[in-house]
């Protein structure tokens, strides 16, 4: 499953980091012993790329390729690699195509990786709501695209699994069972959708990885992961799987009661990067959400990746130029008080 994402330590401390260090020192100095580990972490750095793309008919492959090159993902690195793209396919409703990653974003990602010399590119998904993965594959429009492009789709809800020790250790799960197919690929790329979420505040590239856990072991919905804590599970899956790259489809996202019942939100962006917490924090800022108020991101900070704006080098468009507040619903606890101020 390859190398962990690029989280490089750095000596550059942010004001938030200094405050944390000061607080930790104060607590230690006064003899109190309990300091959450996350307040003692060294700051990390990452890069994300934001591209303006106002329509799915535009040159998505070219845009992704430009972003990837800006992020240092080049032919030398991708040549000969087997790339697995994990979209966000949840369920379908005729009036709500914005539930799922748009198929043309997948087509663009496939073309971009192939142009960089990937040996193979495949798409794999295990929806949490529907037992019939092929129905979501068909009704989302992805089947038309992948059939035309002759790209293999894998239903990972039914693939036999292999276990890895839980590297995140946030939940009580001792091991995590991933699809055996993942042992045969070099890169796992989360190709997510930019959406609000009624249990977690936002669902982006990290939460998207719930769909890699096979339903035959985790059920429909993947209730094992809910039972041990959704936020814990997001962190455990990401810490253990160590995905390599993320692309978030924010051309049309979802606001309000996501991930299913919300309204479409035209944003006109694609966001990408090697580090998933950094990508998701950037998406949150674009959505008008404070990433430090999204529990799993706050807990991932400087562990799985940085989420501070000072620690994320922003390439492409500035956040301010594309920022648009997503509707948050004040009766949904996970969306209360998370607005970026």
């Amino acid at each position, binding site marked *: 499953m390859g190398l962990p994402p690029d989280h490089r330590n750095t000596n550059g401390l942010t004001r938030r980091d200094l405050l944390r260090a000061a607080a930790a020192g104060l607590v230690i100095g006064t003899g109190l012993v309990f300091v959450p580990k996350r307040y003692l972490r060294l700051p990390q750095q990452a890069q994300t790329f934001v591209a303006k793309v106002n329509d799915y008919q535009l040159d998505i492959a070219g845009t992704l390729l430009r972003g990837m090159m800006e992020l240092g993902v080049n032919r030398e690195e991708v040549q000969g690699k087997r790339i697995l793209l994990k979209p966000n396919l949840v369920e379908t409703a005729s009036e709500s195509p914005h539930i799922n990653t748009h198929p043309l974003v997948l087509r663009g990602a496939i073309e971009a990786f192939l142009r960089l010399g990937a040996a193979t590119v495949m798409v794999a998904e295990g929806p949490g709501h529907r037992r*019939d993965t092929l129905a979501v594959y068909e009704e989302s429009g992805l089947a038309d695209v992948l*059939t035309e492009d002759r790209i293999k789709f894998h239903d990972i809800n039914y693939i036999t699994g292999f276990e890895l020790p839980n590297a995140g250790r946030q939940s009580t799960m001792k091991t995590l069972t991933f699809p055996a197919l993942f042992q045969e690929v070099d890169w796992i790329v989360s190709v997510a959708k930019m959406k609000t979420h009624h249990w977690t505040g936002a669902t982006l590239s990290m939460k998207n990885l719930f769909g890699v856990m096979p339903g035959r072991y985790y*059920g429909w919905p993947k209730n094992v992961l809910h039972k041990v804590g959704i936020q814990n599970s997001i962190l455990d899956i990401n810490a253990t799987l160590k995905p390599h790259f993320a692309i978030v489809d924010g051309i049309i996202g979802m606001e309000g009661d996501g991930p299913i*019942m919300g309204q479409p939100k035209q944003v006109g962006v694609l966001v990408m990067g090697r580090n998933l917490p950094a990508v998701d924090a950037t998406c949150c800022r674009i959505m008008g959400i404070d990433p430090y108020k999204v529990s799993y991101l706050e807990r991932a900070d400087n562990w799985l990746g940085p989420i501070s704006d000072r620690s994320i080098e922003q390439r492409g468009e500035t956040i301010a130029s594309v920022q648009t507040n997503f509707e948050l619903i004040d009766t949904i606890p996970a969306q209360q008080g998370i607005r970026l101020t």
Partner: protein
Amino acid sequence: MSLSLGTRGSAALLRRALPGGGFSGKARGKFQTDSTAWGILALSACGGPTELLNQSRSLLMREQLEDGRLCVDSTHPDSFWPTALAILAWQDSEPYREAQQRAIRFLLDTTGFHFPRESDGPSAHDSQLKGWPWVGETHSWVEPTATAITALRATGHGHHDRVQEAVRMVLDRQLPHGGWNYGNTLVFGKELHPMPESTGAGLAGLAGLVGRDVVLPSLSYLQDKVTRLRTPISLGWSLLGLAAWDLSPPNAEALAERCLANQGRYGEYETSALSLLILGALAADKNNHVPFLSISAHHDRMSSE
């Protein structure tokens, strides 16, 4: 159903049969409990070879744990959802009666994670009603509960308290406008979308145990939806669910043929999906008896209890 579809479906299943019995998920794959149970159900409905069927039933028995459960594999003992399928696969086969009884006992003794409903909670369903989960210590969901009801009804336990409560649970999860999904109705006040496979499973489970009037919106939903289905799990469960209520679309055979042909588009179907499609296509033809549904068996036993 035409002989050709049954023959081709059976032939495809036989290609997944392993030397010595049992079925893999796909051709050239390894033994899988759930694939084996589904393969037995479909192949026996097609009049498949007795020796293979019994070898496969014996292999299921070998996989059974001491407490009666059958799991997706030995490293995941909590993933016991194939237990109900094994009960159906062993039905009416005397050598497996003891194994079947232990599996029944396991189901009757097992619930999932349930908790009191909060009046202002985000989910509308009654979270205390017990059905069965996919995986141990998680909540009850529609398909595993409906399948367990089907298995227990087929084996004469339709009046057991657990089954009766499970029937109430499935009814409680029926969406206000008809149909079922995996098992949530309203979340934060919004009615969620129905799904054909969950609706078919729910209808198959409830047949013979509740009146038609209480499932009419779901029957309507599925009758409207079924002709547009192209994939085997949705179509198979839908045809089974409708057949359980003596309904079938006039073009069921053509729908099944189209779905079978769609393997050219989607790739080879997983054994359980292919089996569901075969069972659904068989059930849609009233001339066929599909033991899987076993409604008549339930009625027979009810009248003799």
